[in-house]
């Protein structure tokens, strides 16, 4: 339990459960643990049932377990809905003024939260500080650690929050004592960030100049974070009338030489697809963060899915190259978002960061040094010699870029089939040559990507059985693979498809099990194009991520 500790806090929307989970995550982070927090909430603003599960482990984690060590209940629903997760030696901490814990066999500690708030004249939202004070006492986290976290992360009324937290702390009793995960320098406290925040930082690091988006869960926090960072990083952040304007604005920025990204989820991306095709034809670099949620249509707005892989691979009329990467955690998100921006500009084509609710909104310990550094790469720029042709033919298919104003030169972008200068044409020879030029860029990009770790192998490398995953199932697959002695293969880049790298990862594998959060095994279908056979499929499509227990149960069944 001390190596791997799970805490669930639940209440109603408006209780600040996401923030409370974040505080718990930071407490464990300060003790040197690695963090994964999944936040579950319905699509409403007040009421309903929200909960955060914070898993703290001595190793990197990217998934939750069903069982929890501590249940923190701000309301009765939380107890009723989650008591099945309790182990014999779990603890329950609850608001004694609101929750009856009569039926709970496990050790429990009631904190008179409502009464304390009343006596301190505190706001209702401060109940989190109060009950987290109680939590720290119960699990033996020193008051100084909590005080430090609250001082740093509570935006308003810090003194009152601290008083309320201290009274919660004092009114509880210690049931156990969480030891620091490590005192060594190699397990320092790390930034605890969401995947969306990591995406923002990766893009900014690689030279992002503008972010354009229309809000849509689970991509909205990208827009919020970019807008917050805008003054410090000189970003132009625009929230226009709809997603059609979004994808077109990004290309206006690109035409003028500003590196732009957009963010959306499936429904918004549907509106963007004509613009994606424009980017393909006019060779406008654009990064599209597509964070998946459960579909079709409005679906489950606040829940996860991996149902849009083939949509993103094929969106937009006509044929043109695209870069698609699906990060599996915040570290992947940081590094590969930067690479995506560089790919978009080096090959003047759309680049997708295919995320999902879990990667986008979960909290992770983010170790930038381990994530890999990413730098801004200059696109191929015009050398200023002779007459400028926006779409000049080259061996790589990549035409040098220039941005207005250029004295004595004209820069023409065109959505029609066009000649090298950018004038519309219906000439069959040029139509074919320009198509070949665009496809050549895709081949050049694929060669470039040979230098990157586009497929990653984890777990037991010599195992004859492998799990095949993409996106947010990375964490759960790595962990399950370790338990079962299997290999886990994560396909990061999905276009251009890293066929050779995947075949290399599959050497010695006789049985391949696809693990996906969709109902039709979309990655399995994709690798099938390359003659790779999937023997078993473990699919989950109820909007919730695989817990470690879910996947282990399925694997146990399949592997006998």
């Amino acid at each position, binding site marked *: 339990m001390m190596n791997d500790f799970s805490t669930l806090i639940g209440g109603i929307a408006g209780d600040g459960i996401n923030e409370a989970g974040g505080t718990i995550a930071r407490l464990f982070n300060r003790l040197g643990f690695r963090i994964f927090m999944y936040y579950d909430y319905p699509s409403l603003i007040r009421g309903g049932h929200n909960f955060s599960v914070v898993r703290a482990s001595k190793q990197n984690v990217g998934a939750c377990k069903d069982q929890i060590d501590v249940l923190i209940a701000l309301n009765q629903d939380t107890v009723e809905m989650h008591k099945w997760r309790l182990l014999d030696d779990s603890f329950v901490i609850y608001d004694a003024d609101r929750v009856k814990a009569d039926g709970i066999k496990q050790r429990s500690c009631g904190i008179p939260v409502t009464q304390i708030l009343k006596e301190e004249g505190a706001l209702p939202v401060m109940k989190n500080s109060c009950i987290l004070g109680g939590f720290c006492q119960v699990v033996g986290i020193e008051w100084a650690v909590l005080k430090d976290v609250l001082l740093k992360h509570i935006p308003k009324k810090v003194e009152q929050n601290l008083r309320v937290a201290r009274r919660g702390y004092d009114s509880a009793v210690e049931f156990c004592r969480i030891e620091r995960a490590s005192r060594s320098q190699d397990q320092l406290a790390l930034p605890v960030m969401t995947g969306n925040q990591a995406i923002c930082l990766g893009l900014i690091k690689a030279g992002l100049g503008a972010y354009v988006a229309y809000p849509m869960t689970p991509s909205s926090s990208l827009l919020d974070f970019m807008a917050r960072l805008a003054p410090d990083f000189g970003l132009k952040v625009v929230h226009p009338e709809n997603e059609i304007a979004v994808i077109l604005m990004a290309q206006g920025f690109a035409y003028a030489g500003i590196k732009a990204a957009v963010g959306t989820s499936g429904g918004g991306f549907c509106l963007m697809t004509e613009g994606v095709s424009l980017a393909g034809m006019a060779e406008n670099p654009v990064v599209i963060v597509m964070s998946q949620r459960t579909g079709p249509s409005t679906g489950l707005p606040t829940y996860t899915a991996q149902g849009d892989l083939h949509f993103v691979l094929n969106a937009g009329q006509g044929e043109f190259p695209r870069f698609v990467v699906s990060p599996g955690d915040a570290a992947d998100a940081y590094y590969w978002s930067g690479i995506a921006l560089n790919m978009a500009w080096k090959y003047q084509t759309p680049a997708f960061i295919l995320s999902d609710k879990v990667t986008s909104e979960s909290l992770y310990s*983010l170790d930038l040094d381990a994530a890999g550094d990413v730098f801004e790469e200059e696109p191929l720029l015009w050398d200023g010699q002779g007459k400028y042709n926006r779409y000049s033919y080259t061996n790589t298919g990549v035409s040098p870029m220039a941005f207005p104003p250029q004295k004595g030169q004209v820069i023409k972008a*065109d959505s029609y089939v066009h000649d090298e200068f950018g004038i519309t044409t219906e000439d069959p020879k040029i139509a074919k040559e320009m198509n070949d030029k665009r496809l050549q860029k895709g081949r050049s990009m694929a060669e470039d990507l040979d230098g990157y770790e586009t497929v990653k192998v984890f777990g037991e490398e010599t195992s004859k059985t492998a799990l095949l995953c993409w996106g947010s199932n990375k964490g759960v697959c790595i962990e399950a693979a370790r338990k079962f002695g299997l290999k886990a293969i994560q396909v990061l880049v999905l276009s251009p498809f890293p066929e050779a790298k995947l075949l290399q990862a599959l050497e010695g594998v006789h049985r391949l099990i696809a693990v996906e959060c969709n109902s039709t095994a979309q990655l399995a279908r994709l690798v099938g194009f390359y003659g790779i056979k999937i023997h078993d499929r473990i699919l989950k499509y109820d909007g919730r991520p695989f817990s470690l227990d879910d996947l282990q149960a399925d694997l146990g069944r399949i592997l006998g």
Partner: protein
Amino acid sequence: MNPKDLATYARNTWCPGCGNFSILNAMRAVLAELDGEGYPIENVVLVSGIGCHAKIVDYLNVNSFYSIHGRTLPVATAIKLANPDLKVICFSGDGDSLAEGLDHLVFAAKRNIDITIILHDNRVFGLTTGQYTPTSPKGFRGKSTPQGSDELPMNPAEIMLVCGATYIARGYTHGIDLLQRLFKEAIVHKGFSFVDVLQVCVSYFNMYEAYNKRTYEVKGNDTGSFEEAQRIIRSWNYDGGEAPIPLGKFYETDAPRLDQAFLDARPKDLERHARIKVLLENFI
């Protein structure tokens, strides 16, 4: 600069007698003139949608972004935000900006972004061979409305006025002097400028006779008055009937603009790296 220098090698494919020739000629003359008056031609970016109007960017040897149907303004807005020194001019059609892309027109006016839109308002879909548009008169018999359209037309100038455009005018493709004057005013105007051009489609909606008879230029009007502009704009509602059709400048005012809201101060790679490190401290 000679306007002829702004021609390209592209073969012109407009129908003989098309009103678009007047817009092309007027714009060429205005851009050549402005080049010598502190608006260098390399700072001009043209953005067009899709339709007969849009071919104009192939015929002008000027920076351009030939966009997709209905989507001139988002592209133009971002170009202007990226570099406020650029003069950005959109060419759009009534199908393009009033049907497919009306949302962008409304928002561009609301933002008062410093760009110009020339609406080639021929009141018919030409390139798709003759369907009704938002400014076709009620009863218009097009290919999609063979029994006559049941809808009343919309008045784009009125929409622009209430949405916050700060320059609104109407020209006619017979009358190149007025057209040039309006184009120049609109381009020089600081803010969102909208020029509705009654551009005759000789093949599918030839209105030369009606327009020649009914158009007149408003003179001496108080262009700073919202109420007066509204009265003039409402005096003709694009429907059939015999109402006189006002041309000229209807409205011009000064208002805060979106392109003033952005400052570009992007830190260099090393500085970005340092700021990211500082930021990350806040997440521990």
